């Protein structure tokens, strides 16, 4: 979704409030980045992590099964 001039004005006003309340600039920048970048990439990564864990479980089970077959 494109960021409009109105959005930026609202952000500037909100951030001015935060800075005037004594919130460190670094924390404010991090908060804005977190809010604007969205969770998409990290949500996909969490899904991938589950996929890798499932692949590991399946592969380990298959290795055990094949090792038992090869031994007999």
């Amino acid at each position, binding site marked *: 979704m494109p960021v409009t001039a109105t959005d930026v004005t609202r952000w500037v*006003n909100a951030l001015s409030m935060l800075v005037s309340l004594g919130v460190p600039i670094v924390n404010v920048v991090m908060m804005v980045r977190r809010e604007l970048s969205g969770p998409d990439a990290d949500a996909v990564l969490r899904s991938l992590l589950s996929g890798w864990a499932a692949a590991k479980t399946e592969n380990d089970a298959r290795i055990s099964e094949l090792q038992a077959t090869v031994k007999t």
Partner: protein
Amino acid sequence: MLRPRPSLVPVAALVVALALLSISCAGHAKPVLVKFDASVLTAVQTIASVERELSSVGVLTPAQSLGIRLKLRPVITLGEQATTALLAWQPGQQTPASLLHLSTSIGDLLTTVIGMLPDGTAKARILTAIAAAQQAWSAVIVLMGDV
């Protein structure tokens, strides 16, 4: 409604500008790395699936199947490590080392697995999946050149 102090407005505007600038980089970099990670997982899943299929019809012996599965193990471990590293990764940081190792290991896996499989549809499926991973890796290399 509370109105901000005028002297703080330029500071806040600068914060917004810096955040937007960094977001434009973040919006480009992370999805490229994530796409590579996803393509390697797909390749691993394809190899696992093909191994089961060929084993069930007797094209692969249990020893050959075991050989393929043992080769998959370090790639899966690296895939988990790379994904965990990517979750913590921020634009501007170096590409996680585990992601670089994952690229090398998928190349090694290709050489090993392809050498063990007979020509046919199953082999073509694996080649297609690994080609997609290599294509995604090319995008990562371009990205690393930009960073």
